[in-house]
């Protein structure tokens, strides 16, 4: 066995890192980034001893935003699984928290099956332990998981259960804000924009009370998207502005990127193409290009391609849309692929390449038809069917003239 002094060093080491985590003002712990490997090693050793594994597991849970920010879910998932192996019997509450995180990291990794297994176990355990807060949290996690897969009925059912659970136990603003936020996202996905705005307004109201700036900013962006879809353009602009000012000067680059992308879309949809281009170029920053945020890279290139199509810069538009298509493939995003393929069809039609354009539009329509429940899919389906009809009319007219 290790000599006792080393056990004590393991324990002191965990306490040292826990102290720094507790004292930090920013939950993402940017000052601890250079210490990433030392913290990981502290937890790894801590998990190996009967007297320290609980402290190690607690430290993992407190590092949540640090882990989320670093994107090292896979490495930390290994330690979470090790903690879960230890955490049996009387440690039910701790196990609930570990399952919550483990399912979340699997979701971030788009490993839907493992995420579902973790959250289902979380749900069953919360029931067994008669923990209404844990049960509501499990429903919330399940709603997020289904929403990410665009399975809106299951997502809505779980979101409603989560909200009812949080209300029943008088949960904190943060949980309530989260529940309304997911409800708003689901209604947005279904295309019920007034309901989406209503839910997001309530979500924002709850997050204002938490003092957790990044969550408020995220909620405001969701609200802005719903407001825009609902035709409330000035209100949407105001929501974006507020979100921007909240994040100004912070290190939440991913959230800033998201704001610029969404704001750009609002400007685009109101025909302010030059301003939209500026917003998208701000989004397509060195940070985004360097990052592994493939989904956002796909959005930025797709959106810029759309702007260039409107501005008649067809060569640039085509290059960006093709880049976007390769990114969607990597991000495993079929509906976005369909949308970008349709836009590429329009670009090719404008470039006088009707055969290639026709193939793209047909592909886009087939892709959108695979999502009959989705509000946005319905929109783009209509858009590309119209474009296809128009293209066929033009080809026939050209044939007659020829």
């Amino acid at each position, binding site marked *: 066995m290790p*000599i006792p*002094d080393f056990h004590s*060093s393991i324990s002191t080491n965990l306490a040292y890192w826990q102290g720094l985590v507790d004292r930090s003002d920013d939950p993402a712990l940017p000052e601890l980034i250079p210490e990433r*490997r*030392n913290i990981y090693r*502290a937890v790894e050793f801590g998990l190996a001893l009967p007297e320290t594994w609980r402290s190690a597991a607690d430290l993992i849970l407190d590092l949540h935003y640090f882990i989320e920010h670093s994107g090292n879910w896979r490495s930390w998932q290994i330690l979470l699984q090790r903690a879960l192996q230890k955490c049996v019997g009387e440690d039910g509450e701790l196990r609930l928290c570990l399952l919550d995180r483990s399912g979340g990291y699997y979701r971030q990794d788009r490993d839907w099956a493992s995420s579902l297994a973790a959250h289902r176990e979380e749900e069953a355990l919360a029931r067994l332990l008669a923990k209404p807060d844990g049960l509501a949290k499990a429903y919330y996690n399940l709603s997020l998981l289904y929403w990410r897969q665009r399975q809106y009925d299951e997502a809505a059912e779980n979101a409603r259960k989560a909200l009812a659970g949080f209300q029943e136990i008088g949960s904190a603003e943060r949980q309530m804000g989260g529940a309304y936020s997911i409800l708003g996202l689901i209604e947005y996905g279904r295309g019920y924009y007034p309901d989406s705005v209503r839910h997001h307004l309530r979500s924002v109201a709850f997050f204002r009370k938490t003092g957790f700036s990044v969550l408020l900013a995220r909620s405001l962006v969701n609200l802005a998207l719903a407001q825009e879809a609902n035709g409330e353009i000035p209100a949407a602009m105001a929501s974006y502005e507020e979100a921007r000012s909240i994040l100004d000067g912070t290190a939440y680059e991913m959230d800033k990127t998201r704001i610029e992308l969404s704001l750009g879309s609002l400007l685009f949809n109101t025909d302010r193409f030059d301003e939209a281009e500026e917003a998208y170029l701000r989004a397509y920053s060195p940070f985004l290009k*360097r990052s*592994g945020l493939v989904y956002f890279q796909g959005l930025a290139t797709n959106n810029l391609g759309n702007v260039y199509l409107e501005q008649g810069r067809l060569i640039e538009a085509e290059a960006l849309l093709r880049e976007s298509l390769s990114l969607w493939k*990597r991000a495993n995003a079929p509906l976005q692929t369909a949308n970008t393929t349709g836009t590429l069809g329009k670009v090719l039609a404008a470039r006088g390449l009707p055969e290639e354009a026709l193939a793209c539009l047909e592909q886009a329509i087939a892709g959108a038809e695979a999502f009959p429940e989705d509000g946005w899919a319905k929109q783009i389906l209509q858009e590309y069917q119209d474009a296809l009809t128009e293209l066929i009319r033009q080809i026939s007219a050209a044939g007659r003239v020829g």
Partner: protein
Amino acid sequence: MEPLSPLDQNQLQATVHEALADWTRPGHAGVDLSAQLLLVREELASRLVEDKTYTAWRATFAVLDKTIDQLAEQDEVGAQVLRLRFFEGEITRQVATRLHASPDQVNRWQKSAIANLTAVLMDHELKRRQEYTRLILDGLPTPSYSRLFGLRSLQAEIAEQLLRQDEPLVIALSGIGGIGKTSLADAVARLVAPALVFEQIIWLRAFIDPFAREAAVERSWAQVEEALGQALFGSAVAQGDLGNRLEDALRSSSFLIIIDNLEEKDQTICFLDHVRRLAGPSKFLLTTRSRPTISAPAYFRSIAELDLADATDLLRHQDLATGMNIMAELADKDIEAIYEVTGGNPLALKLVAGLTAVMSLADVLDGLQKSRPGPIEDMYKRIYWKAWQTLSLEAQSLLQAMPLVAETGALPQQLQAISGLTEEVFWPAVHELFARSLLEVRGSVHERRYSIHRLTETFLRTEIIHWPEEGEYAF
């Protein structure tokens, strides 16, 4: 990417003149300065993102165009002459009329403007090369050595192999623990960086996780793969996507990936299989304690032990660095005796020299001689035991806690916490361990980090703290 050619003002001036003249000459493909200028390569790369049809010739023109703008700030007339002659395509007589000067005067202005333009271009190019090199070197950990001994020719040889455009794509430096593989890899990286052949140099360290009960080798690769993804793409790469993204990135640009600290034969074979798939044009430099087979898919170079002269130099250097002042007392035959025992292994030399500060040379050498010849591990075990037994209790407390520190090193605050030492005894313990070559100091004067050599960690784990043992997983 081809290495950038060294800058030669006369040659560059001639090429610049040719490039300018070519711009308006009909039917010419244009002069491409991307082999000479990083500025042109960067211009080309940035524009290709938006326009796939952009060419090196257009990038050359764009760079010259911008440089003429800068020239105008110091030589307005010269810049104007160059624009009229080469961009507007006016003949000398037309320019002379426009500027109210004689054709001879215009020719003199033009000659002087091309010389000035080349000087401005050289200045910018040199600054940009220096900035870029600094950026590349920022990716390397701070070295734990201050001078390289006995490895200069091998350093040059490996650097040359890495700068070649073709094979070898994977180079492995093999040798026993403590022989200087990491230092050599670092020195090679610093030698190749200024050639700007590699867009980035990424340093990764491999581990066999002592906590992993199964698939430890594959897990070791998975961790390196994840760290490589982090270095290339920043954060957040989804699991299923990582392999393909790495392949895309490493096959479309030229990176140098250094993977340090491979220990076992199986691990080396596994890593070689993986990196072969990712190599070209990117290259890999591995350090390993084992050499699997002659047919392994890599260019293997073994690091030999130091000869007596280099070993003596190393000891003198270490003596100065640690302030031990023992070399003055050692006669040539004493140094030869140390050399005899350690076999010219740099880490062993330093550890033995450290021991002579607290033990007589005879006591140091006693027992060590018995382990030669024999497995290198036996020699190290004996040296480390002697070192351990002659440390103060405070230094032992600190050293014993060091396996909790990652290879990146720890700040003093963490070390003090895990060693349980008070401020008064902590720093003397640090100094004692450093002087005895048991503690490596990294970083700059603004931030110091402390770590231990992998062999020191192995000794502590196996001999002192007995970690990990099978039973520890069973509770």
